């Protein structure tokens, strides 16, 4: 979930209202936003809706706060303005590289410190979050006062082209920027394998930026006091590029700017043609059956309420008849996938408090999972045997599951991207966990009788997922006189009460002392192991009292009972 930094005073100015903190928190609920940190003049606000990048800025949050409060939104008429004369021309060689660009210009905006900070914040959140680390979308904003249109979006020779990147004093070739500039190194992977690098420059050849990596130092860097801006976005997904530009345009319009459209001229086909006027309103009319709406909200709602709700959420061209409602979302939104999305907007605008909760009235029968019932019976019996239950993480380490139990041949499910070595494998047995408890519990008065019933995961090639989740019981006793027969008497008790008739065959399992271990078998199939733990294993864990233990797969033990 994106978290943005907002200047409180700036937010309140944009929203046209001052709030104390509880008021603000309450108002932000309709935006699905939460104040996470309050730091004097600054607020850290988390946006829960990952599908609404238009809200990831103070302009976006303020826009919805204000619209929701006043029941009406800015029309953002510039989306419908006729095409202007400003152009971006695209180099044919970009088609296979980073094919899409969109842009607009903005005049009359007063860039103060707050505005500058927030524009940069919005640009970064869009590119990093929505643009997935600048790969799908990257955004540049420039002072346009010296810019010579048409702007060019070219595929440049990385070794023959050079400019002074932001934050440096000398010019570098495009390729050298990727290795020598810190930002260049961060984003170099996005240009990997490119024969030519994307480059934005004006008609005089002044380089503005090398998207999606870095801007040029000199021409175009935005400063406080600027009032004529140029904003572009480049990327690999056309609609994402267009939406980002639409959002940036709405944000600048909210700060008093007049948006000047820019035409993008492609020498190749795009899903939206070869000439695209930006910012572009891509929204489509959403049509919702009123019966569906009532079914979702669970009752009647009058047309006036629907109309008011949609207006408060920024919908346009709202048309209602007896059977359906039609509306277009705000031009900076791209999250209405299904009529339910519009229905939720209605519910949020009306307010959750205005819906009377009602208990589901269908009768259903509660039923526990059979394996959980069996687990519970076994847990009860083990407690009756005087054993303390333990409850351990399922994630473990290869060392615990193999080397420390002298079972280096064990096949286990491992994690390819572990966060730490300690939690890098899924346990294939419960016994290593019990030994870990033993190792950590030398100070606990003896004797120790402990058990766990829980899930393990084993490799099983012929299963659909190549693995199988099983439920096991492991029990262990540790004290000076712990023996095979001592622990087996508890297995006897379980077998008696659960009604399964096991037998033991000698086992050479490496975790146990030779000659004092047995495979637990049922109808000729092994389903567990019992014995005295090998002193070498005890030494590996630093355990200094004798330990005997057993472990069984209860799925199998339980089927007989």
């Amino acid at each position, binding site marked *: 979930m994106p978290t943005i930094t907002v200047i409180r005073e700036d937010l309140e100015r944009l929203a046209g209202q001052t709030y104390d903190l509880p008021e603000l928190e309450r108002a932000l609920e309709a935006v699905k936003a939460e104040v996470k940190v309050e730091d004097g003049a600054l607020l850290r606000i988390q946006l829960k809706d990952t599908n609404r990048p238009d809200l990831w800025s103070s302009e976006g949050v303020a826009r919805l706060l204000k619209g929701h409060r006043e029941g009406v939104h800015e029309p953002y008429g510039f989306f419908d303005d006729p095409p202007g004369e400003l152009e971006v021309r695209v180099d044919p060689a970009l088609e296979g590289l980073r094919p899409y660009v969109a842009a607009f210009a903005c005049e009359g905006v007063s860039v103060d410190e707050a505005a500058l900070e927030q524009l940069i914040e919005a640009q970064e959140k869009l590119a990093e979050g929505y643009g997935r680390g600048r790969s799908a979308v990257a955004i540049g904003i420039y002072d346009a006062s010296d810019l010579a249109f048409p702007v060019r979006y070219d595929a440049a020779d990385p070794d023959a082209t050079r400019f002074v990147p932001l934050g440096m004093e000398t010019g570098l070739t495009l390729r050298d920027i990727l290795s020598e500039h810190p930002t260049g190194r961060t984003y170099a992977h996005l240009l990997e394998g490119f024969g030519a690098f994307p480059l934005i420059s004006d008609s005089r050849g002044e380089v503005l930026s090398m998207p999606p990596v870095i801007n040029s130092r000199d021409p175009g860097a935005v400063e406080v006091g600027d009032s004529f801006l140029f904003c572009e976005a480049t990327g690999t997904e056309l609609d994402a590029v267009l939406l980002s530009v639409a959002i940036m345009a709405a944000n600048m319009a909210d700060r008093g700017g007049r948006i000047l459209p820019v035409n993008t001229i492609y020498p190749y086909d795009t899903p939206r043609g070869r000439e695209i006027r930006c910012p572009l309103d891509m929204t489509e009319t959403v049509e919702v059956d009123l019966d569906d709406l009532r079914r979702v909200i669970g009752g009647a709602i009058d047309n006036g309420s629907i109309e008011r709700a949609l207006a408060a959420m920024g919908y346009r061209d709202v048309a209602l008849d007896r059977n359906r409602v039609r509306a277009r979302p705000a031009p900076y939104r791209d999250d209405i996938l299904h009529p339910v999305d519009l229905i939720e907007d209605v519910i949020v605008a009306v307010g959750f408090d205005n819906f009377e909760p009602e208990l*589901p009235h269908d009768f259903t029968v509660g039923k526990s999972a059979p394996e959980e019932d069996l687990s519970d019976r076994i847990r009860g019996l083990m407690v009756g045997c005087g054993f303390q239950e*333990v409850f351990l993480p*399922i994630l473990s380490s290869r060392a615990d599951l193999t080397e420390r139990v002298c079972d280096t041949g064990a096949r286990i*499910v491992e994690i390819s991207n572990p966060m730490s070595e300690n939690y890098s494998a899924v346990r294939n047995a419960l016994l290593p966990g019990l030994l870990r408890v033993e190792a950590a*519990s030398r100070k*606990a008065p003896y004797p120790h009788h402990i058990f766990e019933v829980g899930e393990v995961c084993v490799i099983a090639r012929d299963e659909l997922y190549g693995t199988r989740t099983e439920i096991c019981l492991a029990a262990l006793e540790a004290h000076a006189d712990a023996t095979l027969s001592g622990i087996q008497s508890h297995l006897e008790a379980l077998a008696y009460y659960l009604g399964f008739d096991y037998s033991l065959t000698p086992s050479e399992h490496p975790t146990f002392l030779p000659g004092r271990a047995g495979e637990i078998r049922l109808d000729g199939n092994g389903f567990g192991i019992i014995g005295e733990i090998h002193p070498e294993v005890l030494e590996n864990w630093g355990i200094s009292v004798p330990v005997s233990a057993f472990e069984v797969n209860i799925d199998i033990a339980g089927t007989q009972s």
Partner: protein
Amino acid sequence: MDPTIDLSSLHALEIKTLRAFESGEEHELTDAVLPEAAGIGSGQVRRALEWLRSKGLLDVAGEATVSTVSLTESGVALAGIGATPEAALLLRANKEPAPTLKHLQADTRFDRGEWGSAYGGLKAEGTIRQDGAAIRIADPDRAAFYTERLVPGLFGRFREAGDGAALNLDDFTEEIQSYILERTSKRGKGKAAIRVDERLERTYRLTPAGRGTLERILESGLTGDEVSRLTPEMLQSGDWRDVSFRRYDISIKPPRILIGRLHPYRAYLDGVRRKLLSLGFEEMKGPLVETEFWNMDALFMPQFHAARNIHDAYYVKEPIRSNAPEEPFFSNVAAAHADGGDTGSRGWRYEFSPARARRLILRSQGTALSGRTLASGPNVPGKYFAVARCFRYDDVDATHAADFFQVEGIVLGEGINFRSLLGLLKLFALEIAQSDECRFVPDYFPFTEPSVELQARHPSLGWIEFGGAGLFRPELTRPLGVEVPVIAWGLGIDRMAMVALDIDDIRDLFSTDLDRIRNERENRPAAT
């Protein structure tokens, strides 16, 4: 010390020892006489004295070094004969004709050496004199000491007290005392008939509290002979009728025994499970190793979703993928993602990768189980829940465990809508968080629309985010073959458990410290 000490707290040995002081003058007795006075062994007396001193019922009135006299082996033999060689010699010397040493040695009660040393000794001290060969008495008074006073005064005392007794040196007459000291210091040890030992003798005296206690013991008739245990023999013989039983001090607590017991956190989850079962929910189970398909794709989370990158879930190293796509669900879900398929949605508008969907991961959210249940032909109407172990790519710290539990579920039926969603959440707040006050706040989940955050006012925590819920998107339900509305809900259970168990580090829910687990008290039941 409390003067009104509880009599039932006194041990039988203490009672007997206290009662012994009844006979002592001024309630004083020496440790030498106490065993006899109390009628118990000297070791038992020693223990009882120690306990009584620590209770302030008696103290030490004085200490003195006492010499005690006891018989050696040869002394016991002399006592048996009833005479000493000196006495025998003197008695013979009193008669005429006066004996010679030869005559004496013919008497075999003593050997030649014993006769010899008696003769030598008596002669040297001037009790006898030599008259030619004959032996005559020179000092009749001294002779009378040997013949009349020594045997009864020394050996006679041991006959009364027993051969093994140790008698106080001071209790003998002065002449016997000097005889004893002379004999024990001059003679070789082996030959000496008597032995003198020195020991410290303590005199004990009851304190005022002790005297009060003694009086109360006497009043209540306690003797210390009360029986401590009822035995099977007493019951069989009926002897129990004739004995009185020692009263216990019931204020003394025995040590707590180590018992077999369910784990407190798991028992808490058991309580949540029971509550959901009682509300008519059916339990769901599923594999720990999931496909991205069931964990995310089937939940309408697009493959480019931010929560699907490598840093949010744990990927299985080997095998990498499931063996086959699960149809028709793969195709249905792929269509819903691409253009909505037949769900009425425009879809996410991207190309769905079936290979990615088959990638194996560790289950990262319990909602995976809800998706599986929808695909398996659930009951309509139906209510389902799971207490599911889940795994997220997170640093393990006080608020993040290596793996954690999610309590999740679904409710499906024709009549399910936004208001029944709110009703269900209100029920959960009441039944599971014990909160009669709750709030609903707009929320976002990729798989539900509308989505609700449930806030409950918890009795000790105040307002908490207790759960998230919503109506599953049609893009999720229809590809899995479900045509009715479905509520999906999840509850934040670990925080509630930590409060109930008084734990502030989430890792302690899965502690490996047996002492800690054993000492964890029973929590308040989760859901009653």
